[in-house]
C-alpha cells in the first residue's frame, strides 16, 4: 500500500513510500517489481442506504467490500444470527469468484446455538467445528491502540468501528485517552559546553475502542481481523472483562459457621 499507482508506470512521483499514508487498508500480496496490472472493477458504495448490521445483507456486503480479508472465523459470528445455509451459500459464491480462503484452523462454535437454528448437518460448512463446552462471555472488550501518528490512529478507529458495526457487535464507545510525552534533555556538543543542551520528545497517542457484551468466539474473530490489519508502528493492548463465580472457599464468611475463635479477652 506504500507504493502509489503512478509509480507503476515508472513515472517520477513526489509521493514516495517515505511519507506514511495513514490508511489501515489490508496489505496486498506483493514482492518483487510491480507489474502493470488492470484495476479490477470495484463495487460502488452507496452511503445513503445503511444496512442493518448482523444480517445476511450486511454479511454479503461485508464480504463483497473486503473479499480477500474474510477469514473462516468470520462465519462463526454470523452463524449465530443468520441461517447457516445462507452464510454457506454466500461464502461459496465468494470463493468461486475470488481467491480461495485460507485454510485456517476451524473455530469452535457452540453446539447449542446451531441446534437452536435448526441445523442438523454441517457438510456445507466443513471448516466449522463443534464443541460442547459453553462459549465464554465477556462484559467488556477493550482494545487500546498506541502509535506515534494521530492520523493513523484516526483511520484505524474508523476501520475498527466499521468492522464492529458490520459484524453486529455493540460498540459502546471509542475515545482518545491523553497522549504521553517522554522528554530527553541531552548535551548538544560532543565535548564540554554543559550549559547548552538539546531536548527531544517522543509522543505516544492512544485510542480506545470498547465493545460490550460479546461472546468468546465473536471476540476472537473480531480481534483476529483487527490484528491482521494493524498498521506498522501501531501497538495494541486488549483487555477482556468477564464475570467469574466466587471461589467456593470464600463464598460464606467464616464467622457464620462458628469456626472462628473469639479474640483473647
Amino acid at each position, binding site marked *: 500500500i506504500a507504493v502509489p499507482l503512478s509509480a507503476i508506470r515508472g513515472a517520477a512521483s513526489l509521493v514516495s513510500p517515505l511519507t*506514511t499514508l495513514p490508511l489501515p487498508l489490508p496489505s496486498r500480496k506483493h*514482492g518483487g517489481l510491480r507489474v502493470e496490472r488492470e484495476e479490477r472493477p470495484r463495487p460502488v458504495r452507496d452511503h445513503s442506504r445503511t444496512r442493518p448490521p448482523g444480517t445476511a445483507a450486511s454479511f454479503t456486503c461485508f464480504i463483497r467490500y473486503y473479499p480477500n480479508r474474510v477469514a473462516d472465523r468470520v462465519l462463526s459470528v454470523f452463524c449465530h444470527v443468520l441461517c447457516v445455509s445462507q452464510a454457506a451459500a454466500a461464502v461459496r459464491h465468494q470463493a468461486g469468484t475470488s481467491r480461495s480462503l485460507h485454510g485456517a484452523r476451524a473455530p469452535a462454535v457452540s453446539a447449542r446455538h446451531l441446534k437452536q437454528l435448526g441445523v442438523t448437518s454441517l457438510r456445507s460448512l466443513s471448516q466449522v467445528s463443534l464443541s460442547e463446552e459453553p462459549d465464554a462471555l465477556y462484559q467488556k472488550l477493550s482494545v487500546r491502540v498506541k502509535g*506515534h501518528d494521530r492520523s493513523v490512529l484516526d483511520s484505524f478507529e474508523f476501520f475498527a468501528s466499521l468492522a464492529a458495526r458490520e459484524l453486529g457487535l455493540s460498540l459502546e464507545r471509542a475515545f482518545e485517552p491523553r497522549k504521553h510525552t517522554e522528554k530527553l534533555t541531552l548535551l*548538544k556538543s560532543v565535548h564540554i559546553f554543559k550549559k547548552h543542551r538539546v531536548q527531544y520528545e517522543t509522543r505516544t497517542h492512544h485510542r480506545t475502542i470498547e465493545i460490550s457484551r460479546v461472546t468468546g468466539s465473536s471476540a476472537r474473530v473480531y480481534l483476529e481481523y483487527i490484528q491482521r490489519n494493524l498498521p506498522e508502528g501501531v501497538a495494541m493492548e486488549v483487555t477482556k472483562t468477564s464475570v467469574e463465580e466466587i471461589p467456593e472457599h470464600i463464598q460464606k464468611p467464616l464467622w457464620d459457621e462458628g469456626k472462628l475463635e473469639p479474640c483473647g479477652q
Partner: protein
Amino acid sequence: MATSLVRKTKLLSMVSSQLNSAACFRNIHCTAACLKNRAARIRVAKGDKPVTYEQAYHPHHIGHRKGWLSQHTSNLQGEDGAAERVVEDVFIRRFMYGTFHGCLADEVVIKRRGNLLLICAVMIQKLLPSKFYFLIGYTEELLSHFYKCPVKIEMQTVEEKVVYKYL
C-alpha cells in the same frame, strides 16, 4: 546522523585499541551528543546541488512534512526492544546500500508488521529487471536467515533520482 555515528564509533575504537595496547584498561563514559543544528541537514550552497524531498526537510519536520523511515512499535510508551531494532535497521540499511550499489534513489524505509520485516526501496533503473529480481531474492533469503523472520522487499523503480530542489 548515520555518518556522524560511524565517525564516533571509529574514534572510540581507535582510542580503546590504543588504551588496551598500553596495558591500562579504562572505560570511557560519554553521554549521547546530539548536534541538533547540524544533524541530517544539507547546508545551502551555490544552487547546483540536487536534493531529494527526504534530504531537503530537516529532522524537526518529521511528523509534519516528512514521514518516518523506520516504523516499529518499540519506541512507544510501555514497549521495549528499541535498541535491537535500531541495530537491525542500521545493518539492513548498510546491506541494502551495498547490495544495490549505486541503484538506491532514496533512503530505505523499513516497516515491521508483527513478525514480518518489510523493506521498501526506490531504485534507479540501472540494472536489468532480471538482475533486480535476483538481488531481491538474495536479500530476502539472507536477511530472513539472519533475523529468523519473514522478510519482504517492496521495490519501486524510477528512471533517475527524483530531485525536489537545488541547494
